[in-house]
């Protein structure tokens, strides 16, 4: 198992390396550079820039360097933890992203947890009570959950519960971390969690139901019954564990999807997460900020996949390697 993890970590580094090259090229592709924005900013401050000053700036920022030189400059600093400066905010990228990424990961983690805690029992109930009225009710709720747009659900919930969004009360927003602030966070967290996870919860419930129905037809479920086990144990021990695979695999994909996909919800709910800042960075060609977010999303994707693989191996011995 240790061997497997080491190999996977090695593969992760290589994957990230290729992602960095591709995303760097993509972000460099559009015409114009962030320097234009910087120059515009300096011009707005007053003072005209003459050509030599402009060339000096271009020289300083390496705008005219060939792309591989730029890439090398950026990546060699990045691996040392220096991701460059944001032109937009005029401060180091590292100062900008941590807090936002932290909230994003927390929101995504809580959403996955919420989705599992709701979808597994609901899916199991739905499968074991197929074609009964509760099953139909759950099915209808699932369709609503999948179909409703996030922003609409966010607005409806905000109006219904008279919330103004955000993750903190106004007086707590800038306060240093304390237990009271944590409690305040929990009081606000549930609404974005429901908004962000509604779709995946509904979808996972459906997957769980379908999968369990499949597994319940398997011979080994009958074997477990023939052994004299309680029906609840037959379902929860022998059947559910064999139906969990797709739910576990969701960690791999859902983690970055939740972080990237919570943009709309974050804007509507006024959340201090990574999504809105990332979109802004892309629109303003704030390339170092954008590519840093991109790299972290990629990192989360590969980590998510690794976690999913490890969990799968833990649940199903057939996947265990060696």
């Amino acid at each position, binding site marked *: 198992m240790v061997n497997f993890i080491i190999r996977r970590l090695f593969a992760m580094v290589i994957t990230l390396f290729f992602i960095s090259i591709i995303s760097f090229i993509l972000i460099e592709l559009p015409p114009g550079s962030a320097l234009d924005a910087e120059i515009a900013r300096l011009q707005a401050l007053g003072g005209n820039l003459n050509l030599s000053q402009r060339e000096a700036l271009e020289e300083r920022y390496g705008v005219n360097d060939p792309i591989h030189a730029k890439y090398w400059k950026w990546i060699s600093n990045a691996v040392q933890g220096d991701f460059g400066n944001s032109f937009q905010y005029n401060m180091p990228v590292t100062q900008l992203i941590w807090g936002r990424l932290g909230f994003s990961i927390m929101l995504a983690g809580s959403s996955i947890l919420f989705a599992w805690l709701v979808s597994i029992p609901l899916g199991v109930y739905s499968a074991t009570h197929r074609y009964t009225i509760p099953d139909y009710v759950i099915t209808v709720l699932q369709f609503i959950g999948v179909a409703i747009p996030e922003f609409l659900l966010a607005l409806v919930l905000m109006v219904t519960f008279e919330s103004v969004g955000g993750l903190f009360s106004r007086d707590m927003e800038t306060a240093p971390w304390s237990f009271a602030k944590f409690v305040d966070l929990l009081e606000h967290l549930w609404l974005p969690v429901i908004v962000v996870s509604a779709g995946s919860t509904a979808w996972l419930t459906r997957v769980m139901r379908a999968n369990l129905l499949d597994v319940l037809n*398997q*011979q*080994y479920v*009958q*074997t*477990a*019954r*023939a*052994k*004299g*086990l*309680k*029906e609840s144990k037959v379902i929860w021990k*022998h059947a559910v*564990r*064999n139906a969990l695979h797709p739910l576990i695999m969701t960690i791999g994909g859902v983690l970055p999807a939740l972080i990237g996909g919570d943009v709309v919800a974050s804007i509507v709910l006024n959340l201090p997460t990574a999504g809105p800042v990332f979109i802004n960075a892309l629109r303003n060609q704030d390339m170092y900020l954008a590519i840093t977010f991109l790299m972290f999303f990629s990192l989360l994707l590969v980590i998510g996949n690794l976690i999913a693989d490890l969990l799968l191996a833990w*649940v*199903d*011995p*057939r996947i265990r390697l060696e």
Partner: protein
Amino acid sequence: MADPVTNVETSSARQDGTDDVIQVKDLHVHFHTALGVVRALNGVSFNIPRGKVLGVVGESGSGKSITGLSIMQLVPPPGRMESGEILYKEKPDTAKPLNILSLGRHSDEMRAIRGDDISMIFQEPMTSLNPVFSVGHQIREAIMLHQNPNEDEARAQSVDILQKVGMPNPQRIARSYPHELSGGMRQRAMIAMALSCTPALLVADEPTTALDVTTEAQILELMRDLQNDIGTSIMFITHNMGVVAQMCDEVAVMYLGRIVERATVDDIFYDPKHPYTISLLRSIPRLGTNRGQKLETIKGGVPDPYTTVTGCPFHPRCPSFMPGLCDTVLPVETIIEGKDHHTVRCHLYPGSTPEQVADGDGRVTGTSGTAPNTGRAN
């Protein structure tokens, strides 16, 4: 008619002094589907003598497996036991047999019987073990549930039983997962699991059908050995007459949810009475017959399960079909003269119509299910 009909019950009284571990009486199981009612079992009555191997043979859809599952009360929905009794006698001296069907499907009493008193092995060894638990764990589960809640002792017991079923390295096998074992090994593991609590009855539902012939022979020999060892009775469901010849003491032939003939294994092979049994035996390829000669088949196919055939259910395919009788009157179970253990449901043999039964002094047990157990005293 000179007393042609005798009571079928006497055959279960077993003059040799043994008794029945299971007695099924007039069992009806119907499946209520959206397309109609499928009558899977239409009054099945038979007994499983203690310590013997009863073979149950028949085509696909004849109700063999449903009969086995009924004894475990594991008939899947929408299947329903409409009527009948399944009497279980744990020991020869058990005073009052227990009607399994009187217990709730999910009741604690029923669960205490499953896996402990009566256990079952299935056709597909590839899928009948849970892929995510080790073989040892799955055997241990049954032992801990029924016999010994101590995990360490159950662990040792499971290794013991794996050794008993001929596993080369039982400790290692106990730790391995089903996908690491071959089909034959998995079936051995299933047998180990089924026999771990030394059941009074083992229901084996085509346990060797999915295996290759060499493995099949090994598994059959193993089952035979263990049966002699433990003294478990076996209900052996199969459609393979060769396996029947090798494994069974007695045979029940099923057709469309009824038992049409019941005899010792010798009588079935050397003196079959029911036209269906005869055709079934004729359709087996044999060594030494002319190569150019066509193999005999039973003409027609099993009728649509949603319909009911009037009269004898086999009459549309029967070579000895007698118009006016076979297609109107359902034959009752009659005993072949001079052979106490040989019963048949066919109009070719005297005593097969209800009128004849009424004329004679015999009682029809196959359909009434009310006859007392005359043989139970010995």
